[in-house]
């Protein structure tokens, strides 16, 4: 499902114009990204939790240049699905 489809469906459900729904989605995404940028953690009931954690620096071998590099540590975003979502998707075939 692409972004445009989500916009259309949200507009249908909340009974608003597609322009308004794009604005709302953008605002939501902006808020979530802002909060994750401050290393905050939040959960949406029935869907899952979003948070960040630090990945340590590690050695990596680049096969094309045949060199070993020390990659620096960085922050990554993780998503843990809620138990309801897990149960729901257990038997769905992945495509």
């Amino acid at each position, binding site marked *: *499902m*692409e*972004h445009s*489809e*989500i916009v259309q*469906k*949200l507009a249908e*459900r*909340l009974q608003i114009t597609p322009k308004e729904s794009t*604005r*709302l*989605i953008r*605002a*939501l*995404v*902006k*808020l979530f*990204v*802002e909060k*994750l*940028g*401050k*290393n*905050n*953690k*939040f*959960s*949406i*009931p*029935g*869907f*899952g939790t979003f*948070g*960040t954690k630090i990945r340590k620096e590690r*050695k*990596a071998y680049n096969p094309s240049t045949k*060199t*070993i*590099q*020390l990659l*620096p*540590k*960085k*922050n*990554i*975003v*993780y*998503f843990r*699905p809620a138990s*309801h*979502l*897990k149960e*729901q*998707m*257990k*038997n*769905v*075939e*992945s*495509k």
Partner: protein
Amino acid sequence: MMERIPFKKMLDLVEKETGLDNKESDRLVRHWFGIINEGLEKDGRVRISKFGTFKLQSVAERNGINPITREAMLIPAHTKVGFKSAKYLRETVNKKYNLLEAKPIKMEEKKTNKKETINTNGQNEDINNESTKKNSENEIDELVSQITETTSTENMELKNENKSKPDTEKTKIEQLKRKQSEEVRAKIEEKFSQKENDFTPNGVMSVKEEDTKSEEKDEKEIIDQDSEVEEKKTVEKTELQKTEPEKVEVIIEKETKVEEPKQPISEPEKKEKKSKTGLWISIAAIFILLIIILLFWKPWRTVEEVVAEKPMVQEEVKPEPPPKPKVPKIVYKTAGGEHAVNRGDKLWDLSDEFYRDAYLWPNIYRVNDKNIPNPDILVIGNVVTIPPLEGTYQNLTANDSVNISVGFYKAYKAYQKNGNQWAKYYLWVCKKYDRKTFNGYEKNVEQEDFLFALSMK
């Protein structure tokens, strides 16, 4: 630091960001994630721009250990939900560590050394090219350095002496400085005449400026000399322009840069005129401002007028009458289609809304049993499909009763899984609606419950 934001606080933030009600923002967030949920089931992949993609991944079965009982167990194959953050999100999260770069460990060290040597060679070549040009300038530079040393030391002495010694000694030192500056000018003019192609470096001119500043106050003769020197230079340049146009362009650029600060010094009278006109302009501007302030402020207003004005403003802004609360009309919807779950929705209410009979809710559950593990809990934003009835709720057809009995059986299974003690009663109702389907489930059902359902009338 890692801080958990509760959902209620998050809704307040959404309220601020979007300008919706608290209830509406709750609906928005839940429906948005409900749509993502739906898309995952449909396509197995949902992309949200600037945030990330949710994707279903299949996991093969493997051996594991139960962490509580420490027993080996087989984890069956299943699909899980994965999330990959978008580039925009990754960059914002990683702002702190953006400056860090990957360091090469072994092979790369030799390469970097080679690069450095190449760089130094390149610099040397450049220097060699430039050295030929610089040789001609060096002679002038040496002169300048000598002068700067002497002047700087003298200046330092001057500052120290000014505090202690009287004015008579100052004049002596100034005279010494004048003599030296005149000597320097003579030397530089000779150089110009000798080498027409060379141009004066900036340092010489800067030194001249310092000298002229010190002399300016006392005598105007030296200023006249300066102007003469400038004239000479200009004449020389005009001669050069005819012979070698390429080099002259460079010279003119440098000269213009240097001469700019000199112009105000050579014409001090203009400066005074400008300052006088500036004063007049500033005074006029202040008067105009005062007039404008007086016009708007009205200091001559009496207190009564001020008091009389205020209530007028209050009367104008009348609060609008509050909108009357809408009385919700009971509208029975037609079954057949999809319904997005809102806050407070239950299967019981939905069946009352669509079938006009709340007791028929297992008919809805029959179709959606995969998405709803527990029939008591619906997730807001998820979609529930509602199958239509063939007859009406008062006169059910044979097919309807079969469907409903299947629904009751599925509800019984779900409640049994969750350990609900009332599960067996659903099996009894299943028997009530259709006896044949109930008999078909004899092997799938626990014997105690089956016997209980049989015993009930």
